[in-house]
């Protein structure tokens, strides 16, 4: 059950309200309270909502990855999300069978045991042949795919391989978007079209290939990784981009504050995101390895 702080302790700040143009997603950022026991989540946790988590750049097998995984389990205990979308770099280094165990199965075993499903996209550190056939990544042998989660909410995810965005994949993506009648069309992949990373930053090639489709088919939110921190951008042409690239890796101090892109960020600790879709609203909490909810808010999808 979602732990709620008392009304008196709940400090809600309207940090930004962006409506730069017609059809833009409306973003409301909320300052989260902190509590002594459990995570101080601020998500609505409604009965029929769709709850999911976002994780990227995690498969290191490091102590930090395991510690963040423990926070993910803690979050799940309070807020029972049903699936985790993986934005790539799922295993670093070798991908022997024992690596799948050490870098994925062991840290997330409590979530797997609880029935949480993981849906992977491929990053530049991932071996497509090994991972797309790995049952627990639910890729069904495909490098790119789409799926509709089991929920009453109108949601479809589109999973791309951004390191090899060949014309056939882009054509497939457009056909999938065109054929989808879901209200929430959510693409996720590894390389961020918008990012304030000093190491990588925005990928203009990916942006020019995909952004026109996002705009044409009314995408409101995109999840990516690659840069090893958490960032939520200000809406870019009405779309909010999340970089969730610190699921195990971390590049401290790597957010370039001069880009003007950042609505919120954390380059000081590993982090993951949990989110909830209810009707036209997507609420989110970003949670650090230390168990702090450091970014919260909601995105309203334009109708």
């Amino acid at each position, binding site marked *: 059950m979602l732990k709620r702080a008392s009304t008196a302790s709940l400090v809600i700040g309207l940090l930004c309200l962006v409506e730069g143009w017609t059809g833009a997603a409306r973003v409301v950022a909320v300052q989260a309270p902190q509590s002594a026991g459990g995570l101080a989540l601020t998500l609505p946790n409604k009965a029929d909502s769709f709850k999911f988590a976002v994780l990227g750049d995690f498969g290191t097998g490091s102590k930090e990855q395991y510690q963040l995984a423990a926070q993910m389990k803690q979050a799940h205990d309070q807020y029972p999300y049903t699936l985790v979308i993986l934005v790539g770099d799922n295993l670093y*280094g*070798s*991908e*022997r*069978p024992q690596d*799948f*165990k050490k870098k994925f199965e062991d840290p997330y075993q409590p979530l797997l045991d609880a029935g949480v499903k993981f849906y992977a996209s491929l*990053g*530049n*550190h991932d*071996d*497509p*042949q*090994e991972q797309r*056939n*790995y*049952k627990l990544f639910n890729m*069904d*042998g495909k490098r790119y795919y789409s799926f509709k989660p089991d929920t009453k909410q109108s949601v479809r995810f589109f999973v791309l391989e*951004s*390191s*090899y*965005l*060949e*014309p*056939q994949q*882009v*054509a497939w993506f457009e056909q999938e978007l065109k054929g989808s009648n879901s209200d929430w069309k959510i693409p996720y992949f590894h*390389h961020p079209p918008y990012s304030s990373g000093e190491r*990588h930053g925005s*990928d*203009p*090639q*990916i942006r*020019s*290939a995909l952004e026109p489709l996002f705009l044409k088919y009314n995408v409101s939110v995109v999840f990516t990784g690659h840069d090893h921190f958490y960032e939520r951008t200000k809406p870019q042409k009405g779309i909010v981009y999340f970089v969730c690239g610190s699921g195990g890796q971390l590049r401290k101090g790597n957010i370039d504050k001069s880009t003007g892109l950042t609505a919120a960020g954390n380059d000081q600790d590993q982090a993951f995101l949990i989110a909830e879709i209810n009707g036209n609203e997507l609420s989110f909490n970003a949670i650090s390895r230390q168990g702090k909810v450091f970014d919260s808010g909601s995105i309203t999808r334009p109708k």
Partner: protein
Amino acid sequence: MRALRGLPILIAILSAVSLSACNRSSAPSVDQTKASVPGNTAAAPAAPVNDDARALAAFLERVNQYATLHQKLENSLPKVSKDSTPQQVDAHQRALAKLIQDARQSAKQGDIFTPDTQAVIRKLVGNVFSGPDGAALKASVMDENPGVPNLKVNSRYPDEIPVSTIPPQLLQALPKLPEEMEYRFVGNALILMDTHAHIVADFVPDTFPK
């Protein structure tokens, strides 16, 4: 049936090269994309229109010969399914690599990317990377791409080295490959990677324009 496998790809690349000669900046149409899908034999093959087209058509023939060998050898192994364990997938990958390496023991750099193909590939890469976005494109390719000393045909792609990003613009310009093959960069070399076997099938050294 397999003899026809390369036909639509051949049609597509001939069309692409012809169009490219007319207008370098034009993107492939949806129809071109459809034409490159194996099994689509709607159009009759056109004769190669110039030396570059001929070189790329011959390159695709060699790629398809490789793919045919790959498929024959892969079909001799237990199939990987969505229920396979990581052990089974890994064993399959390494067993396929061994079969291909044995079958292509004498393979050397330049067998698939022959010298005339290398020249055309360098030209296509040069066209993409010499544009106004060239520096940014090269930066994205070289990101986390330190290269490999003594890159060899038939060798396993190094586990510790991430794969390079291939810009969408370059993938539009290069001939479309069968499902089991990909282009990647290792340092300055453009490699033809067998993704099922995780090995280097061939490569073009020093691909980027100086």
